[in-house]
């Protein structure tokens, strides 16, 4: 059943639940962070409308930095601003940042250990019609491999807002992942959020499987858990917004309670969130783990719903996979 301590939306399983892209949380979050700290800046590489950077620009025109279509320069500028004591957020599509400017991020931000906040927008296949070039599926892997880098993947716009506000207060280089399409706003203002902490969304009696999910896939996992419960299969849904550092205690507890784990992410299954979970559990508490995500392929054009269905990331598909996995078959795909 739904974890009451998570203070989730009262419309949780309603068709009327608010649909909003997580990038909206970047717009509102940077404004709140900007009001709290005059050192907060927002840099953008010619995508201020779609990244919501222009929301910040309207409030703080002097602290909005337009860099043109130059993501490599944007990373170096952000590092320079941080060296001058600023708290720069740099926003572009994840395919370009950190896709295009990985080495600049590695050297001038991560190795340099400056408090730059990298906002990677339009991540995942749910970008939709733009197609594979713009559907970033490797960013979590790229970013979590970097020493010093914190990696956050919020579930909805409210949590994205909280993640931005929290990241502005830390000294660490931080990557935050955002999506383009509207997703269910499952959390509320009262839902707890802390960098490095997970959130139990669903907790069934004698669970047979634990869903460990990140980003908006946690909402999908919740729907799958509810459907399984109706069939008498209980589960746990652990939402993992901070992929690095991983909340190992919570991951371990979920694995111990259920004995089987399914990870879900809108990302390549190699190198991403599921890999991070496996890296930890393989030594700490080896249990069967099934990783759901994109299987070593690029995306394509389509509507977000069509694409999530096509790549096996819809709630009905996940429910079926889990049913088979719980039944003992590990190659349920």
């Amino acid at each position: 059943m739904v974890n009451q301590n998570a203070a989730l939306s009262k419309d949780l399983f309603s068709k009327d639940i608010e649909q909003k892209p997580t990038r909206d949380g970047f717009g509102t979050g940077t404004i709140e962070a900007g009001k709290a700290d005059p050192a907060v800046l927002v840099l953008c590489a010619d995508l201020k409308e779609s990244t919501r950077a222009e929301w910040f620009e309207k409030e703080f025109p002097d602290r909005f930095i337009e860099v043109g279509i130059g993501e490599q320069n944007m990373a170096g500028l952000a590092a320079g601003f941080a060296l001058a004591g600023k708290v720069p957020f740099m926003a572009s599509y994840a395919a370009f940042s950190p896709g295009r400017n990985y080495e600049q991020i590695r050297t001038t931000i991560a190795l340099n250990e400056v408090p730059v906040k990298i906002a990677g927008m339009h991540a995942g296949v749910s970008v939709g019609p733009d197609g594979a070039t713009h559907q970033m599926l490797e960013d979590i892997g790229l970013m979590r491999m970097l020493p010093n880098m914190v990696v956050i993947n919020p579930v909805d716009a409210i949590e994205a807002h909280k993640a931005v506000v929290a990241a502005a207060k830390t000294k660490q280089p931080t990557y935050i992942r955002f999506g383009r399409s509207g997703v269910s706003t499952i959390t509320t203002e009262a839902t707890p959020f802390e960098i490095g902490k997970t959130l139990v969304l669903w907790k069934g009696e004698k669970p047979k499987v634990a869903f460990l999910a990140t980003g908006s896939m946690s909402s999908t996992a919740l729907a799958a858990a509810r459907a399984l419960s109706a069939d008498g299969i209980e589960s746990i849904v652990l939402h993992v917004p901070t992929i690095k550092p991983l909340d190992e205690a919570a991951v371990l507890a979920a694995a111990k309670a259920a004995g089987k784990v399914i990870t879900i992410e809108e990302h390549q299954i190699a190198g991403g969130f599921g890999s991070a979970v496996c890296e930890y559990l393989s030594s700490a508490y080896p249990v069967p783990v099934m990783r759901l995500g994109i299987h070593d392929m690029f995306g394509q054009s389509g509507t977000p719903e069509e694409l999530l269905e096509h790549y096996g990331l819809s709630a009905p598909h996940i429910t079926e996979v889990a049913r088979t996995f719980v039944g003992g078959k590990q190659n349920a795909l």
Partner: protein
Amino acid sequence: MLRFQTKERAILKIMSLTDAEVALIEEKAEAIRETILDMLVEAKSGHTAGPLGMADIFAAFYFHILKHDPKNPDWEDRDRLILSNGHIVPVRYATMAHAGYFPIEECLTLRKLGSRLQGHPERLRLPGLETTSGPLGEGLSQAAALAHAFRMDDKPQQVYVCMGDGEQDEGNIWEAVMWAGKQKLPNITAVIDRNNIQIDGMTEDVMPLGDLRDKYESFGWHVLEVNGHDVRAFVAAVDEAKSIFEKPVAIIAHTIPGKGVPDIEFDYHWHGKPPTKEEGERFMKELRSGAGRVPHEYA
């Protein structure tokens, strides 16, 4: 557009340095070159030509131009010198040591396990380095942001950035050149080490750079050109740069790679390798005899 007339430029030169100041900087530059050779021989790896070529300019920075405090490297109001082409860092380490940031003997730890003197500079390992660099093309972006931030906050610091000429191959540089030009940054001076070599050969063979002056000017920069071994001219150029408020300034400093050691001057093969012990001894003699001009030497 603000441009100095020849006469005014001459006055600036006279005002900028006394003969004694010039002599001090040149003396320091020679000592820095000797330390660079010692470091590279001991490290058995590293770059030789670039550091020797930039010794005069680094001596001018640390012994005349920069507002800095070796005993308080994190002093907030210090000028910032960003080294973009991090591979020439031996010249920065040697200069910092001679300026009193750390003991000169520590220079011999260059590139060794546990050393603060990494093969390419790491800000968090050694106080006084302004950033981490090595991968090329990234320093100008950071320097431009520092300059912009200082202007936002009404701070008086000057920002300097040293780049290589081969480094101008990097696309990132031109993104930053455009941005700094757009922002009309008044407080940044970029020094381009025009020594005409890079690892694979002469810059114009590896990748023709076109007219660097025209390129920077077309993006809204003011460009000066000097002999990078004439410390009086270099300091005058920096003074002129500081007096230009409408634009960022680039100083194209024509230097001789391997300067001071005739055996290797102008030879691109010395871009990326260190002298052996025997070569080091020979090069040191060349250095100490003033590149052969002094008939006897004191080694």
